């Protein structure tokens, strides 16, 4: 796989992101995508629950993007753990699962947004924007389902 370096210079006010996804392939490419936006700064990535908690403490991200399964825990468990340690953190779920049960369990665990990987990248930006303003965001269509 060709290594694509970030061509974008991050401002000091860029939003700090932590990426937690069990699937390495899709984590790498989603990081490359997120890196193209100057207002976002991916400060760390991991597939493992414990490592995610350690990085949370070290990097103090504004936003944590999590998949519905990570190494050693489920998405909702990760969301709960993060919000317990740093309640100010915004948790955005980025996943392929569109089943209402998954959406509901994530939102009940305190996640602020639920975005599907199969949707355009702009949705991720929109979700981040909304949760930082204190709103809840769901990919279009998911809202009616739950």
């Amino acid at each position: 796989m060709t290594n694509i370096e970030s061509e974008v210079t991050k401002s000091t006010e860029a939003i700090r992101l932590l990426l937690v996804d069990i699937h390495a392939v899709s984590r790498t490419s989603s990081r490359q995508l997120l890196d193209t936006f100057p207002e976002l700064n991916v400060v760390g990535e991991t597939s493992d629950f414990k490592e995610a908690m350690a990085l949370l403490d070290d990097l103090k991200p504004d936003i944590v993007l999590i998949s519905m399964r990570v190494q050693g825990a489920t998405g909702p468990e990760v969301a709960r753990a993060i919000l317990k340690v740093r309640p100010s953190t915004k948790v955005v779920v980025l996943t392929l699962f569109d089943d209402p049960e998954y959406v509901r369990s994530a939102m009940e665990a305190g996640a602020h947004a639920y975005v599907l990987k199969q949707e355009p990248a702009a949705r991720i930006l929109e979700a981040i924007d909304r949760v930082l303003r204190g709103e809840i965001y769901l990919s279009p269509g998911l809202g009616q389902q739950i």
Partner: protein
Amino acid sequence: MQNVNTLQLKGRLTVLMLAAMPLVFAIVSVAWIVQHQFDELSRVQLTSVEPILMQARKDEVKDFVMTGRKAVTDLIKRNGNTPKTQHEAKEMLRSMDFGADNYYFVYDTQGNGVMHPRLAAMENRNYLGLTDPNGVKIIQRLIDVAQAGGGFVEFMWHRPSTGNNEKKIGYAEIIPEWGWMIGSGLYLDAQQETESRLRESIVNANRATRKQIMQVSFAAILMVFLGVFTLNQVEQRKANTRVRLLAQEVQRSQELERTRVARELHDGVSQSLASVKFTMESADIYLDRGKTQTAANSLKSAIAHLIATMVEVRRLSHDLYPTILDDGGLGVAIEQLGREFSSRTKVPVHTEAQPIPVLKREVAWALYRIVQQALANIEKHAHAGSVAIEMRFSGGIHLQVSDDGVGFKLAETMQRRGGIGLTSMRERIEMLGGEFEIHSQPGKTVLKAYLPSESLKID
């Protein structure tokens, strides 16, 4: 399945025959022996009873004659030896007449008739020469035995009550005062009657015994049938349980397979496609910003991911159903299994699979799965240095998978859940009417499956 049922039926009939034949043989033998014993017993009884009966008749007639003689002797003592007394004695004896055939007769020692209550004409005539149909000089013999101190004579006599010549036993004594021979006789029919009654009772006992033997035999044969029937039921139930367990096992492995496929679709294919999508979106953004080189790199990366995804999909579909079974035949499919095993595990596989004419799909599938399962077992447990797969056709299909690995203990393995793999291999083959065997020891494990020609017929 048809074959299996027919085989089972044949087996059941054989069991029934094997169980019933010795029983029938035993019954016939016992009946014959009993019959023989009865005949022997009745013969012995009759021969032993005959003299006793005869003795009883003899005693009877002797007592009767002695009674008559004593009465005459008493009369002489009382009334004196006179012609008048002689006349009284004659009349007394004549009147001592009991029943149809019990009476006295008196002759003098010259054989002249003195008194005969039934044949008055006989008196005062000489009967010394009287013979019965068998040539016995009746009167002569009676006088002889009487003069010898009393004795018996057997002869034929005209029986007044029936009008026939019948066998009679006579006894005679002498009244010395007058030179009279006093005698009487008994017909032996009573004895013959007793004998025939005895014979009849033996025949009846024989018949009753035969009836009992028949009843016991019937009960025993019934029990054999019931036993075989019960055994059959039990076996049927066992077979049903096995089929049910197999069905459960098949379902379980289907579910496991579906779970595995679903997971691979989600974790592999879908994530790869998501990654392709992210990378292409990155390229799109770079293009918007005029950064064509970076965009091109992203696209190359996306293409590489797409190719990997295509390989993944192909592998998944191959796992679900090896289309090579249909396209290339069982031999080629087995060669492919061997090659894949070898490239995955780096263990050399020697495959010798004869091309086999078109097979029933289920047969090809069963043999394919057995080889697949066997290779999976070897890969997981055997630590083999080499593997050999052999399939040849002669009067049926012979399949053999062998390895030089650590081996296993069959009994222990069958008890564990892991042994189910072996059970389902066996079931697959037996359901098709074939045979399955496996031998294992350290350094040599051989699995053999045989399907006879009949089970291979094309649908």
